[in-house]
């Protein structure tokens, strides 16, 4: 992997560790209200200042990071599992299964992603699971489409032909010979999609469809403090920077993985 990818991985590890260890590092808990010290600019006691309820912004950014990243990770796992199994089925089985799955993929991809995610999330009470479901309901489609194309190409590869010729069962060909070759593709996709999921999660939280107060997420912090942008910019500055940095690192990591694995072209 190239240097950019390595640096992104290090930065991501740092962000992940600090949000997991956050409660140990900041004296004041993320939801602790201190009405004596509201809207204080950054200081030694509060390195990122406090919000309009006197809550420590650093503690909330770390807590928000834990939630935002977990939601994106769960969404990517679910999207991958659904997308991978449908993509494998469509590509390998072909015929009716292929046509039906492909039609469903096209349908989901025809929607502007955020609108469909909004539609799915208003069905459920707002909360963390709702966001995971809403993101995965849209997110499986690109995974399925890419896996399908990949499997189609692999199906005519010479090693698959050889495996069939020596009498492997269809299931064995699929799971032992084709599936392992899809792993790099899945890794690349995961890296590239995580950046987008961080943004979608932030957008849904910003719209009030995600975590409910007082739970902190990066998107909801920006939404709650946006009226304070002029008087206490530090309350919206840090969560936004964290979203951008995290998404940038995931995108760069995805790009590097893609180069590392040879642009995601299937082997012949």
């Amino acid at each position, binding site marked *: 992997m190239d240097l950019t990818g390595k640096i992104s991985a290090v930065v991501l590890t740092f962000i992940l560790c600090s949000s997991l260890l956050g409660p140990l590092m900041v004296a004041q808990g993320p939801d602790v209200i201190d009405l004596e010290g509201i809207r204080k600019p950054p200081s030694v006691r509060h390195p990122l200042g406090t919000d309009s309820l006197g809550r420590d912004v650093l503690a909330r950014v770390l807590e928000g990071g834990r939630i935002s990243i977990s939601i994106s990770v769960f969404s990517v796992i679910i999207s991958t599992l659904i997308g991978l199994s449908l993509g494998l089925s469509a590509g390998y089985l072909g015929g009716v299964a292929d046509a039906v799955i492909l039609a469903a993929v096209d349908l989901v991809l025809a929607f502007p992603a*955020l609108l469909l995610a*909004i539609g799915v999330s*208003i*069905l459920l009470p707002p909360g963390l699971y709702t966001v995971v479901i809403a993101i995965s309901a849209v997110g499986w489609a690109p995974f399925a489409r890419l896996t399908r194309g990949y499997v189609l190409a692999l199906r005519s590869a010479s090693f698959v032909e050889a495996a069939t010729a020596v009498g492997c069962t269809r299931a064995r060909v699929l799971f032992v010979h084709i599936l392992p070759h899809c792993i790099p593709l899945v890794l690349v996709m995961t890296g590239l999609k995580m950046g987008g999921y961080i943004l979608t999660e*932030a957008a849904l939280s910003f*719209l*009030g469809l995600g975590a409910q107060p007082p739970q902190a997420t990066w998107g909801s912090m920006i939404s709650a403090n946006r009226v304070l*942008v002029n008087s206490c910019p530090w309350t919206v500055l840090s969560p936004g920077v964290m979203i951008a940095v995290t998404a940038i690192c995931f995108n760069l990591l995805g790009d590097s993985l893609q180069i590392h694995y040879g642009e995601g072209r299937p082997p012949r």
Partner: protein
Amino acid sequence: MKLYVLRRSALLVPLLLGITFITFTLTKSLPGDPVYTLAGERASTETVEKIRKEIGSDKGLASQYAGYISLLARGEMGRSYYTNRKVADDLRGKFPHTLVLALSAVLMAFPLGVLLGFTAALRRNGIADRLISAVSVAGLSTPVFWSGLMLMLLFSLRLKLFPPSGTGGLRYLFLPSLTLALPAAATLSRVTRVTVLDIMGTAYIRTARAKGMKMAKINIVHVMKNALIPIITVTGLDLGSYLNGAVLTETIFGWDGIGRYAMEGIMKRDYPVIMGCIVVGTVVVVLINFLVDLLYFLVDPRVRVHGSDR
């Protein structure tokens, strides 16, 4: 030509049916009586009865869906729970604002993105290329609702150059369009870079160089002309993401378009409003993609040849 348009239009029908089927399923799954979701909570008894007759739950799923389609076809999307105004009327009034915003964002993003992408491709792996790639990734990764707030903080609240929010002339339009244009320009610059690099590796560019044509002329006459086609397509196909961005950008800047309308609907759980925005937004995007496809066909002779006998 006619055949191609016909075939492409034929594909549009199942797509629109599928989309409306999904929105119909969503509408039916919403908490509460779907008839009220379509009619509005304060609708008159006759309206409720009329709609119940069309999509009533006593009928089969297919006829309920048919009823839903015929309601949509007549522009009947119910009334807002809160204002009791017709959602269709509200959307009609607000759509032009969103359209203006999206178009001015495209006008900003297109030259910026193409210029950056072209420069990056010409200086492949140089400092300019790396810098532009970095800026593009940053542009793609920054949430619009945050970059919008930051632009507002800098340009309107601190420097007082533009009004912070409201709907109106160019002074109001500038910051929200810029906010929307930044991620779009980032996408465009990446696409342009890849396309231009692709074209520069083709045989006809090598031929042009071999016969002693000036690089500047090659770049403009051969590379640019051929690169523009995929770039325009991507711009068109990317309109869905403008709509995504519009929901958030319009909210930040108080721009009175469909996006802010949707956001208000979400805040108040005003289901007819939300569903109306989703239906109209999606259908508009699908239709625009369709038009872009046809445009592509008109512009690129290769598609015309291969497209007609496919």
